[in-house]
């Protein structure tokens, strides 16, 4: 199996036969997935099919029970791997934003570069302000997360991850908790990121968005990758009956 034949260079993320169970229930049953540098990959599938768990395994928030995950050559689940090195490469945005509610927007973005990377304050602040502009939140620097709408908070969360200059961004159903009218402002931000060449892995229910932005689409069901294909092929000519049934339901 050679999921991403489009690139000759080694993939940035390489998952092989990943297994993971919670309380005896196997949620990942041997998942293989490759993400090339600069590629946008969408993972779609019914709820509970293990999509979010896979993302959490990729950045080491959850341990795996079998298989292997490599990010840019680092073995994620080797105890000898430097956690910090891994987390600098992988940024993650959560469904519930998870901003630090006691810090302003600017501080939220600056905290990790200051405390974790120990970079000079002036440099970090300049970068943070640039990122705030990038996600179109100028003027909100000194607001607290509790004062922002869901869409605004989610854009701060994206900026916060970007401030660590990751090589890949993981988006875990980032629009699922948002009001319909604020979904688009977050999607615009992600679309811009993708256009700049950022490697992105998105777990999403926004099929239209996936179709537009993804290079490659993976479809999961019951802990397995059922089908994967370039986005156009995937949506136009799905092969597996489970994919066909799912797409028929959501499109």
């Amino acid at each position, binding site marked *: 199996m050679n999921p991403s034949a489009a690139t000759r260079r080694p993939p940035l993320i390489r998952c092989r036969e990943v297994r993971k169970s919670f309380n005896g229930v196997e949620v990942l049953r041997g998942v293989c997935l490759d993400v090339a540098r600069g590629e946008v990959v969408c993972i779609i599938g019914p709820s509970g099919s293990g999509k979010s768990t896979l993302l959490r395994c990729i950045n080491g928030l959850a341990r795996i029970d079998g298989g292997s995950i490599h990010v840019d050559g680092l073995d994620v689940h080797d105890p000898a791997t430097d956690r910090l090195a891994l987390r600098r490469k992988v940024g993650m945005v959560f469904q519930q934003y998870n*901003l630090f509610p006691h810090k302003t927007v600017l501080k939220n973005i600056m905290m990790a570069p200051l405390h974790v990377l120990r970079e000079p304050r002036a440099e970090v602040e300049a970068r943070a302000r640039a990122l705030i502009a990038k996600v179109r939140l100028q003027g909100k620097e000194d607001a607290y997360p509790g004062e922002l709408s869901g869409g605004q908070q989610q854009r701060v969360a994206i900026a916060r991850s970007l401030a660590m200059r990751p090589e890949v961004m993981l988006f875990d159903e980032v629009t699922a908790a948002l009001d319909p009218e604020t979904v688009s402002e977050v999607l615009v931000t992600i679309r811009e990121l993708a256009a700049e060449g950022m490697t992105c892995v998105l777990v999403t229910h926004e099929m239209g968005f996936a179709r537009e932005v993804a290079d490659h689409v993976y479809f999961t069901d019951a802990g397995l990758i059922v089908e994967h294909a370039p986005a156009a092929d995937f949506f136009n000519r799905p092969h597996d009956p489970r994919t066909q049934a799912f797409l028929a339901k959501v499109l």
Partner: protein
Amino acid sequence: MMEALARWFADLHERTGINLVVFYDPFDAARFFRGVLLTVEMAALCIVASVLIGAVGAWLQGSRWRCVRALVNAYVELVRNTPSMIQLYFLFFGLGPYIAAHNAHGQAEPLISGFTWAVVCFSFYTGAFNTETFRAGIDAVPRQTEEAAESLGYTRLGAYLYVVLPLALRISFPALSNNLVNLIKMTSVAYAIAVPEILYVSNQIWSDALNVPEMMNVVLVSYVLLVSGFNALMARIERRLRVPGLGC
């Protein structure tokens, strides 16, 4: 100004017999003031120490080792469910004599003063309450917020210090405030081991001046003012800590 005030109180004594000696007699005033200062000093030291003990204790309660958790729980339960006064006697009279040194005349002298024992005792007493308070606060911080910090590269300790603890502090602030008020009130128990704090010096003063009712009122009002002042300070800090859009 001060002299006029002193004269007024001396005059009050002559006219009515109400003897507020601490307001006109320089010796008693100095004695009383030193007592107030000692109470404030003791309270300040205990506040800092007990908050640190609480933070460390609460962190250890989240340890992955069962024996560490059991040890912290045992400390909390033992301290909470026994009288602070007997704890103080246990330390000062029971343990104190064993930690002694011989002076030039060959007599044993305790190395640790009553004041220090009182600070140790009250700090650990309140530290036990603070441990529980902080633990409840930490448990109220959503696990996802901690995960977000970890995914940004924070270590477990880093996430605790920069994200979980500041949030837990805000959640547990009212309860913490209450613990610390009880701590300030508790400092008067140091009277029992002759630490010259407010109550003790006042006892000396009323024994000399035979003005028990007046001094008793002075003591009561002093403590109420001290605690009210502290409450006002805590309310200020709470306002400073308050974050818009965060419900605590």
